[in-house]
């Protein structure tokens, strides 16, 4: 019924191939073709951030990216952050600071936060709030999410001192 396209890309550090419909989103490819379900569908319109992934180091809503446009790119999902020490500290902070309730927005939030800390290591609370502006959370009221991200940043700064 619909055209398929063969693509090749790096997913969480592993080179792989996939055959995808031309109208398929990267989100659907990750969830339905690759079988990684940590990236969530929240709206399909780039409004909620639940499907945030990293593409060549940039954070993107995977629902707005065509799967075919993943060709040749380096994709990192929440599952791929398992090997990342900074992301590990973020996950631990989300747990410790109570930043998780229903948890549905959490993977996207963690991916976005890891990107934020990588690109804006000096981010203060206000900058963190702006940095996660595109990620909706209905449970927590964001306060503990901001505190969790800030704690990792503060620990980094301390650790960086001689």
């Amino acid at each position: 019924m619909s055209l398929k396209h063969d693509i090749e890309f790096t997913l969480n550090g592993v080179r792989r191939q996939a055959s995808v419909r031309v109208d398929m989103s990267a989100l659907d490819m990750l969830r339905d073709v690759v079988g990684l379900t940590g990236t969530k569908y929240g709206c399909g319109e780039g409004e909620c951030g639940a499907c945030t992934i990293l593409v060549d180091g940039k954070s993107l809503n995977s629902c707005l990216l065509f799967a075919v446009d993943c060709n040749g790119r380096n994709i990192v999902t929440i599952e791929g952050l398992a090997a990342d020490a900074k992301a590990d500290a973020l996950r631990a902070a989300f747990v410790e600071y109570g930043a998780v309730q229903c948890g549905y927005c959490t993977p996207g939030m963690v991916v976005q936060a890891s990107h934020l800390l990588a690109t804006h290591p000096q981010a203060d609370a206000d900058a963190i709030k702006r940095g996660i502006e595109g990620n909706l959370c209905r449970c927590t009221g964001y306060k503990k999410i901001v505190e969790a991200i800030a704690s990792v940043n503060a620990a980094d700064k301390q650790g960086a001192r001689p």
Partner: protein
Amino acid sequence: MNGAEKKARFIAPDTLIGKRIPKMDAPEKASGKTRYIHDIDLPGQLYGKILRSTRVHALIKSIDTAAARALPGVHAVITAADIVNQRPIGVAKDHFPLKTDKVRSLRDEVAAVAAESEQIALEALKLIRVEYEDLPILTDPAEALKPGATLIHPEPRQPGGQDALKPSGPVAFTGKPDNVAMRFDYCHGDVVQAEAESDVVVEDTFKLHYVTHCCMGVSGMIADFDSSGNLIMYSNTQVPFLHKREFAEYLNMDPARIRIIQPAIGGGFGSKLDIYPFEVICVFLAQAAKRPVKLVFTREEEFISSPTRQPVLLTLRSGCKKDGTLTFRVVNTLHDNGAYTSWGATTPFVMMQTFSSLYRVPHCDYHTTAVYTNNPYAGSFRGYGNLQATFAVEAHMDKLAEAIGMDALDFRLKNAQAQGEVTGQGMEFDSCGFKECLDTAAERSDFRRKFAENLKNRNSSDPIKHGVGIASMLHVGGGAKIYPSDGCGTILKLDDFGQVTLITGASEIGQGSETVLSQLVCEELGLPMSALTVVNNDTAITPWDVGVHASRTTFIAGNSALGAARLAKAKVLAAAARKFECPASDLDLRGGHVIKAASGEALIDLPRLMRNLHFSDKAELVMTTFYYEPPSSYQDKRYKGNVSAAYAWASQVVEVEVDTETGIVKMTRITAAHDVGRVLNRLGIEGQIEGGVVMGQGYALTESLIIENGVTRNPNFRDYKLVTAPEIPEIDITFIETMDGEGPQGAKGVGEAPAICVAAATANAIYNATGVRIYGLPFTPERVYRALHGKGEKLVPLTAKAA
């Protein structure tokens, strides 16, 4: 044993209560490993999709599914005509899952498809031809009440009780002579006399709007029949045991043959308390296709077809004496029921409590008429009518205080309920920290000083005005006696490694119930949190519970878990007493050991004792069960009674900046004081308050589901504005610990409380800033700007007769 030769080890007392305990499921969730309904697939699974009405109110003249059925990959196409004995669902049993002869709202389900893929299912929907004949549209409840209005549910009942349109099936519609879905009438005292004796009387009309839950995880389920015909549902419901019973009745099945498994739930907030058409349709599809069927909403579908918070038009008349004593309240409300009846229609159960009992009101009259229209239908949503009621009550507390020249805080303190009071409605306040909440929120926010200062600055040249407002709330905090049982069961198992499995009927919907229940058990058994495993998501395993609603889980399931833990502790200590030949009362459990209660000396570690029991001749495994039923009662026919075993109280002070040139209201700070009985998990309860406050902020400032002529105009996050991170106010929380005598470790329920008074306090803050009171929500720049320029919406008061 040679323990006597070893150096004695002493374990110091410690407690988990009040500590910051991380959520047990958080590590999995933060790693993306948690499986929600969307992440689960069964072998052989098909994908279900629903065809919804394209008309707001119309007769269905014909449905042609032939082309859809012929599409390759389609396994089943169903309409009402295909379902033998389709029954009505919902609170008033006025709702067929698949519509028979008529659609009554734009969300209505007309047909459904099960196919090999979602794409094929969507293709098939496009091939279904439906012929409609439009009927007059009713979207104003006041119009719907007028004599001669088009009837939404006019279907006549046949003499034999059958539906005239479906003689073989049970009756969905009772053939209503008017569009009234439900009425509620309550009174205590004599309001006429009380009004005559009042020095000041005020009356206003308030309009509360549509908002919706916006759970981040959209609705969905999987229905699967096993080879014996037993139904397994993977469901997001908040009420698995009620659901099981309803489905059994619905499908005419033995309830024993229905099993509900709850994967992790991406948010509830009351949205999953009723049985919905999509769930029944998913089961129909699985029956028809003889394959498992997964049916998951799109976000647009979630906005259009999920129930909303109850929109309310409300006229309140209140009075007081010059000395500040409240005299009476008369309330008339018009509830827009939408086309079908779900829990929204029953929000008066909660609303009337706020009018009759938040403050001491000697005389109170309350009337609600819930009216059918062709709008989306309203369900239950965190706070359950209390946001709407509190909005009106707290506006009048400010207005009456101003009218008699009394300080807003003093006026509230004078009329606030106190411990030991029994209200006109029969609510009994065994613990009540209301006045402490008022004092604390006011002091921590410097309310009095700021209030006076803002009044002075109202007429300054600065276009930015500052305002501060206070509002309070009363809500059930010890369950709510709505069903024959408001209880919860627990099974507790201690294994020979000292590991405990807590099997509870109470569902985890993100609120942290599994953590707080584990904490209560660990506290009782002197174990670390790591010793606990929770099973809480499978009706084939867990004992009965009435569901996650009414802020009841910590209180009810907590008492149940505590009861089972106490029984287990007694068993363990009795065994240890035999072993150490001392009275059990000399022993205690602490740090994973049996200890001497007096000295804290460790006698034996729990796993060893458990293995001793296991291998002894008088083998005894420690397994206990406990069922907790709260000491509350049904309301009588006049809505009087003590429906909850405890009540939660809160006061919140909201501070705003109002830009009078643009109408933009910025919420800068919220100071919240909550009587929660006792803090169990400080991290969890802060999270509940913060999340609730921001949900209340959305209700007050940004969120509005726009319904025009029955059409939902903004079914997406671009146009339906949830609060985002940069907009949140500073939040200051104080917990008032009143140690409720019935609560587990003294705790009361808190889940709904924080969302309830934000909008009310915000309205008062805007008034404090500008001198303009706004009677409708949300406080969008347009609404505020118009109100500031004397162009606010004029609302027609409801009279008892009109309502």
